[in-house]
């Protein structure tokens, strides 16, 4: 069964450093998302991406965050200057249409120290 692949599975970074989280969505999917889950809390929407541009973003997704789909395959989330509160599990997801269930990746656990 097709999968959404995320790398790395775990990343530790120093506060203030830039991180790039990588995702390979399912190839024929059209909509791409990033969500995050702080330990013990609910899953929160960050951003949606369609037709090579951001279609919606949350209040969390401030100027420190950016997304890219540089080569039609990878979908990346960049955090420019990480803060301690950015520590969370970050999930990438994709769907073929908005009336379908998501396929989530297994997540990247980001720890900011």
């Amino acid at each position, binding site marked *: 069964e097709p999968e959404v692949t995320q790398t790395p599975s775990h990343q530790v970074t120093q506060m203030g450093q830039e991180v790039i989280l990588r995702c390979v969505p399912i190839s024929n999917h059209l909509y791409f998302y990033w969500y995050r889950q702080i330990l013990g809390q609910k899953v929160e929407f960050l951003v949606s991406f369609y037709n090579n541009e951001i279609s919606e973003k949350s209040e969390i997704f401030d100027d420190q965050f950016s997304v890219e789909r540089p080569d039609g395959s990878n979908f990346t989330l960049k955090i420019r200057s990480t803060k301690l509160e950015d520590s969370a599990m970050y999930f990438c997801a994709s769907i073929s249409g908005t009336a379908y269930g998501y396929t*989530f990746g297994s*997540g990247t656990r980001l720890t900011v120290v």
Partner: protein
Amino acid sequence: SQQGEEDPQALSIQEGENATMNCSYKTSINNLQWYRQNSGRGLVHLILIRSNEREKHSGRLRVTLDTSKKSSSLLITASRAADTASYFCATDGRGSSNTGKLIFGQGTTLQVKP
């Protein structure tokens, strides 16, 4: 309560028993989805029910949706130890930009004892 709130927050049952989890939401929806998350792992899509549907089945799962009460329930029948996980409802809101954004609830942690 916030969009997509589940109850109970935690549920512990014996193998073979049925588990029922409830979800309430506030705004109009296109669909409501249920996901499972094993500890520290990714989210697995279980079932999607559209706003014009009232009940849906998938294997041992049964989902109901009551749009007049803005609530949904997930029933897992004949539970197994492997069903131990957190279960989340998520709503795809109507009237937004139709980006497919999901709003998740806090989840129900289910423990099935062998």
